[in-house]
């Protein structure tokens, strides 16, 4: 094995990408666009839900419920004097919910505590809810529950939240590591696949295999090229994440880069592997959705794996990005070392070893039926 031959392959791959400006732009733009697009559209924070609030009791206690709803960014509260038919109000006015605090709410509330035991005499808030959007409905229920819990000293239960990572982790914080993995996987897999299929179609493969180049040198050359590209793409994601979304990075950036590069190695292996199944560039394109769709849908990137039907969940564990997500989130959000997330780390390692070994078998076949 000779370093100069490995680097010759690396240099060649990078020069090819450099000449293909469209691909070059795509490579750098894809992480940026993905981060911005997903970051904004899936920020996960629901805001400006219109709710009507009718207070028929008018006490300090009910006032504090209103204040706490008004402080919540999720709601845009309109205070009405009275309501006859809450359901009609919902349908006609465009409110998502009507919250009515009935007369004597406060006295019943305190009476309940005074009795000391369960009783039917209990403060009740009327909530009339438009459930056509379940996510908004859930937000309203949770917001109102928070407001009711938050009644201070007299509240029924107090939940003391300790944030494990020091700060509140938002959707975007755990999304950035997933975007890094996704973008690196896509670009490395797809470009390796296309590049190797072109070598076959154009006959340059024959030239390489009659030369002193070994399969390991060839694969390593690709691995280094796409490892470097993965590094640049990760920098783009992190820069936008930090500047635009101010994402939380608790862990070591160096570990994050190391993990991303590891994942890129596996993706190069996967691309090489798939190249065995395609004889032409148009056949290769068939594989793109096969790589993209499971990664986006099943990896726990957009929604947790727990939200995937139980029947499909085993499939999630066949998707490499599932492990990369676990690993990168552990490293970046939780601030762990890679081996402290054994499942993710092992999954990515197995992915790398398996695809690189199989890729080398595939190349042996492409190199002619020598064996």
């Amino acid at each position, binding site marked *: 094995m000779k370093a100069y031959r490995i680097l010759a392959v690396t240099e060649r791959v990078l020069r090819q990408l450099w000449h293909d400006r469209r691909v070059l732009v795509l490579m750098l733009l894809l992480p940026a666009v993905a981060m911005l697009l997903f970051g904004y559209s899936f920020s996960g924070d629901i805001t400006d839900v219109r709710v009507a609030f009718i207070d028929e009791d008018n006490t300090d206690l009910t006032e504090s419920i209103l204040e706490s709803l008004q402080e919540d960014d999720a709601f845009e509260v309109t205070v009405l004097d009275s309501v006859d038919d809450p359901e009609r109000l919902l349908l006609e006015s465009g409110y998502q919910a009507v919250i009515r605090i009935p007369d004597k709410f406060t006295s019943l509330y305190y009476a309940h505590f005074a009795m000391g035991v369960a009783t039917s005499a209990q403060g009740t808030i009327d909530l009339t809810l438009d459930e056509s959007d379940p996510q908004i409905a859930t937000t309203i229920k949770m917001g109102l529950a928070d407001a009711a819990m938050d009644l201070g000293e007299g509240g029924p239960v107090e939940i003391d939240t300790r944030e494990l990572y020091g700060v509140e982790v938002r959707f975007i914080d755990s999304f950035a590591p997933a975007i890094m993995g996704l973008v690196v996987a896509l670009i490395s897999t797809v470009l390796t696949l296309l590049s190797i299929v072109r070598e076959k179609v154009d006959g340059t493969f024959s030239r390489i295999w009659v030369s002193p180049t070994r399969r390991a040198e060839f694969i390593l050359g690709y691995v280094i090229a796409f490892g470097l590209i993965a590094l640049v793409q990760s920098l783009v994601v992190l820069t936008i994440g930090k500047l635009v979304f101010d994402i939380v990075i608790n862990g070591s950036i160096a570990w994050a880069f190391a993990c991303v590069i590891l994942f890129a190695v596996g993706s190069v292996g996967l691309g090489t592997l798939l190249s065995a199944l395609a004889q032409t560039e148009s056949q290769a394109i068939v594989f793109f959705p096969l790589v993209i769709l499971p990664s986006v849908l099943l990896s726990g990137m957009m929604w947790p794996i727990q939200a995937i039907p139980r029947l499909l969940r085993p499939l999630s564990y066949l998707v490499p990005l599932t492990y990369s997500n676990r690993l990168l989130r552990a490293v970046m959000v939780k601030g762990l070392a890679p081996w402290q997330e054994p499942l993710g780390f092992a999954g990515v390692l197995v992915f790398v070893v398996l695809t690189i070994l199989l890729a080398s078998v595939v190349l042996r076949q492409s190199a*002619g039926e020598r064996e």
Partner: protein
Amino acid sequence: MGSQTPTFLAASLTKTFGTLRAVDDLSMSIAPGEIYGLVGPSGAGKTTLIRMLSGLTKPTEGTAHLLGAPMPDGRRTVEHRFGYMPQERAVYRDLTVAENLLFFGRIYGMSRARISERTGELLELMRLQGHGQQRADRLSGGEKQRLSLACTLLHEPDALLLDEPTIGLDPALRREFWDHFHELNRRGRTILLSTHYLQEAEWCGRVGLIQRGRLIVEGTPAELRREAEQRSGRERPDMEEVFLILTGSAVAGGMS
């Protein structure tokens, strides 16, 4: 030839793909310093034969030797000493002419300085001066083919395996390629090439006619012509007629 190791040697060489016998029990020996032309219609097995001699394809039966090394197993010992030009033009479309040569030079372990020296020589030889910084996909067909030959010659191999090197070239350019081949041959290079232009058989030192994977007849162009004259009674047949006579006209209909 005598005791010299043949540059290319095939002994009962056979390659089957499923039921197809692409190369069928073929034996031939090419001595150092020869220009040998494999002539025959498309699908006759010329490419498979060349790929077996280059070590790219493993024979089903029989043996192939290149510069004395059994192929493909012994190819490590000779890979620096031979050059192979595949039938596809086999250059990177999205690299410049100079970058193509740089890459193929680097994988043969040539220094950048030596590559740039050789690049200058080859671009001049192939009349590609001024095209060094041009992308290969912007070259004309003939220019691309000249670049392909340059990539094959870059590391100065002793033995050349050229698969249809003149396919698709206009007659003038074909002549020019042949001038290169003769010049390389004068400088001691051994050349085995395939062609389906019968006219080119005339320019080879020796010719082997291949049909359905078998070597039908071989000899110098003059020997083949004499053989054809004897069989047909025709006087001074041209190469096309020679081929038709020696192979039987019925199957030669597919020839261009």
